[in-house]
């Protein structure tokens, strides 16, 4: 009774409002969302208050993230080159120089029936010199020759070249043993080596990625730790006013998020600039080799993955530090 009377009394008081006590659930959800947005904005404002420190930290994060990312882009481009080569995985059989086009044609027809050969392609002496003139840039010099020094070449496309490398090697050995053969050149072994190397590179990319991700977690964690001690007083006051750990953690988690997010955007730009820098020399190589290879950058999904992983690392770094150090900051 007494309590009710007092409550009624207080309700009538000038500073009492329609409602006493805590907010309603709908209120709570709405203000929870608003407070998240506000906290995110506030975290960003706070970072901007120390622009130099923020820029330095972001640069370090961006470079750290750019390392594995550029490595990934490198491997990806090498894979594409590898893919291009795969399409032309021919064995070139150079015949002895004294053999004529006709002899070459006969041999090519004979080889076509070989169980392990899918296709043969005859390059006559004349066709050979034409190709050389077009692609090598020695056109002028070649036209001064009064005889054709090139041998007949048979291009051979083996069956299942990539699936069964040992079979291809046996075929190469067989071709070498032919009395007409002068030189047998196969890019297929090379392809296998490239694949093996790419596998090594990918594995290293994984290890490098894990290590540098850990570095990003540490960088962001350390930044958050400094911030935490800088805002010690504020945290103590919040705790005294009944703030939960979750409430106190939130702005720091957003700071971690922003460092991850902005750092990954920075890394994206760094990798982009790196590719722009090497693009011109690659184009020159293209002209020289007559190829149409173009550098691949990060795709849309890869970019999203980079940003997502970085945001996660930022939040994880902040969280790890908060779990460790928030307990030490308390009123006394």
């Amino acid at each position, binding site marked *: 009774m007494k309590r009710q009377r007092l409550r009624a009394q207080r309700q009538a008081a000038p500073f009492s409002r329609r409602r006493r*006590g805590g907010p309603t659930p709908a209120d709570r959800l709405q203000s929870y969302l608003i407070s998240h947005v506000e906290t995110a904005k506030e975290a960003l404002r706070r970072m901007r208050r120390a622009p130099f420190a923020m820029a330095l930290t972001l640069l370090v994060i961006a470079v750290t993230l750019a390392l594995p990312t550029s490595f990934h882009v490198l491997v990806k481009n090498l894979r594409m080159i590898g893919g291009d080569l795969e399409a032309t995985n021919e064995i070139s059989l150079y015949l002895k120089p004294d053999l004529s086009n006709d002899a070459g044609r006969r041999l090519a027809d004979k080889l076509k029936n070989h169980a392990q050969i899918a296709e043969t392609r005859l390059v006559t002496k004349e066709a050979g010199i034409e190709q050389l003139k077009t692609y090598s840039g020695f056109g002028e010099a070649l036209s001064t020759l009064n005889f054709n020094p090139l041998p007949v070449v048979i291009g051979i496309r083996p069956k299942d070249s990539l699936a069964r490398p040992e079979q291809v090697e046996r075929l190469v050995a067989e071709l070498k043993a032919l009395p007409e053969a002068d030189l047998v050149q196969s890019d297929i072994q090379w392809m296998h080596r490239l694949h093996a190397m790419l596998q090594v590179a990918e594995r290293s990319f994984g290890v490098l990625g894990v290590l540098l991700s850990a570095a990003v977690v540490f960088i962001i964690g350390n930044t958050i730790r400094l911030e935490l001690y800088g805002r010690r007083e504020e945290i103590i006051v*919040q705790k005294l006013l*009944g703030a939960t750990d979750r409430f106190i953690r939130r702005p720091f988690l957003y700071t971690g998020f922003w460092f991850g997010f902005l750092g990954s955007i920075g890394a994206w730009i760094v990798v982009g600039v790196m590719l722009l820098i090497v693009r011109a020399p690659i184009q020159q190589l293209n002209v020289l080799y007559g190829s149409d290879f173009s550098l691949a950058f990060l795709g849309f999904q890869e970019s999203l993955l980079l940003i997502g992983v970085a945001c996660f690392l930022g939040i994880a770094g902040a969280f790890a530090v908060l779990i460790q150090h928030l307990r030490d900051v308390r009123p006394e």
Partner: protein
Amino acid sequence: MLEFKEVYKRYPEFGEALRDVSFHIGRGERVFLTGHSGAGKSTLIKLVAVIERATRGEIVLDGQNITRASQREIPYIRRKLGLIFQDYKLLYDRSVFDNVALPLVIAGFNPGEVSRRVRAALGKVGLLSKEKRLPQTLSGGEQQRVGIARAIVHKPDFILADEPTGNLDPEAAREVMDIFRDFNDLGVTLLIASHDEQLISRAGGRVLRLQHGTLSELAA
């Protein structure tokens, strides 16, 4: 509202700060806690706000035994209280408004409700015109009034003040005491720790005296 049952508090470094303290404060009461510095006034306040834990005994706040409260429950216990400190404990990089709004933001009120309640609280302590100021630009008395507005903005049933006038000149101290009395008249329970006997006798109310950690009640 608040009951201490044979409470002991022992600090490993300093020894016993409170010894066999028992008392009961009813709803709507106005109680002063007095005693020389180091007698255990602050320790007692800290036990109620669960800043410190009792070594022995039981403390019951609003029907809840807070001596056994878990770490997760502590914030919710503190939200029932209005805490006022000798050094105000304001955030100096935020405006008066934002300082007073903090308990409401923590409790998850929506912005409209926050500004209504903050303005009402600032009106109560006579600082409505200074809501945009930073705390440093205010006098000590005004800063403490901001502290009081922050302590009452979420309408707690129980206000705990630790030497609220300790840093104030006599006139500002009297103003602060008058504000406390107004709240008490509205039904808010008050526990004010102060060594200023003159101010206490002028304000009137129950007086608990601590001496070397032992509590005795003075006749009203």
